[in-house]
């Protein structure tokens, strides 16, 4: 997307810093120029990683982006990260034109399919099987993200993950 005025603001987040925390409203969409981030929630003191943002991809607190209400998601930089901030209103304006609305439609379809894949992951009881599903789908995850966060995404302990990787 090369829309003038869409990426108005730049943002730098240091390693481990939080871009968004539980309880806040965040209707921005972020484009990752450099670095990586994760979206997670906390349930009974345990952090569950939900999604990752890599260089060249978008990340957002999707529920807040859609509803404009407070969301329980945390967004944290895994390493030093450079972002472009896209305001929701500017984004909507951009997507209104016929050619872009087709793109928007495709993006939503892609997102729904991704969510279905993710739902299937979570319903997979074998840790080994979960690992293989995700490895096949996004090899990039294993190249760019530290093990402890991958383990959290795969719903297993870091020990189990390293055992699986060795075997």
């Amino acid at each position, binding site marked *: 997307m090369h829309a003038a005025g869409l990426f108005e603001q730049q943002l730098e987040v*240091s390693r*481990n810093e*939080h871009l*968004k*925390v*539980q*309880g806040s409203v965040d209707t921005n969409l972020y484009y990752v120029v450099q670095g990586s981030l994760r979206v997670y929630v906390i349930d009974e*003191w345990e952090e569950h990683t939900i999604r990752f943002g890599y260089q060249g991809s978008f990340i957002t607190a999707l529920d807040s982006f859609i509803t404009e209400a407070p969301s329980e998601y945390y967004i944290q930089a895994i390493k030093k990260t450079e972002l472009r901030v896209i305001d929701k209103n500017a984004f909507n304006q951009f997507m209104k034109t016929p050619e872009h609305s087709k793109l928007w439609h495709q993006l939503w379809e892609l997102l729904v399919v991704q969510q279905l894949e993710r739902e299937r992951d979570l319903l997979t009881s074998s840790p080994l099987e979960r690992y293989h599903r995700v490895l096949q789908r996004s090899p990039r995850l294993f190249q760019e993200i530290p093990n402890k966060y991958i383990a959290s995404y795969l719903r297993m302990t870091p020990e189990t993950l390293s055992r699986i990787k060795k075997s």
Partner: protein
Amino acid sequence: MKIAKEPLIAELIETTRQNLNALTHFKEQTATALNWKANAESWSILECVEHLNRYGKFYLPEMERSMKNTTVPGEVMFSSGVLGEYFVKLIRPREQQKKMKTLKDMNPLGSELSVKTLDRCLMQQKELLRLLDEAHDTNLTKAKTAVTFTRLIRLRLGDTMRFVVYHNQRHILQAQRALASYVGVG
């Protein structure tokens, strides 16, 4: 004093996000930097953080208890109490603030501290954020909490939340000054 509740909660959450980020920044520092102090009476970074942990240990469960015991529906405008307003003003960081005395129980000078002190404080900030998130649907005027320094008064939950967040901010800023003066010396 009446305060619109949603902007207030948003501000307390944003301040807590900044406090959380400051703590992650402290975690990147060496043990020497974390324990360094300008003189015997001033606090090191870890002492500032330990001071917050001691307050958190009291106020986090107290705020949680107060929320659980309230059945009144949430309000649009939070009414700050006279005492609450006084303590919030007293603690809120500002330029040229006065030094305050610390209660003995809350004074971290000379206690055993490590990087675990920072981890505890990070956990406490996330616990605080969970409570602030729940505050969206809680009546912050009707819910009341106890305070650490006397049994004679109770504060409105909204005032306690303001007090806790600004008190955190006050000592995070103090710790940042300690770090700046360490960097200046080193």
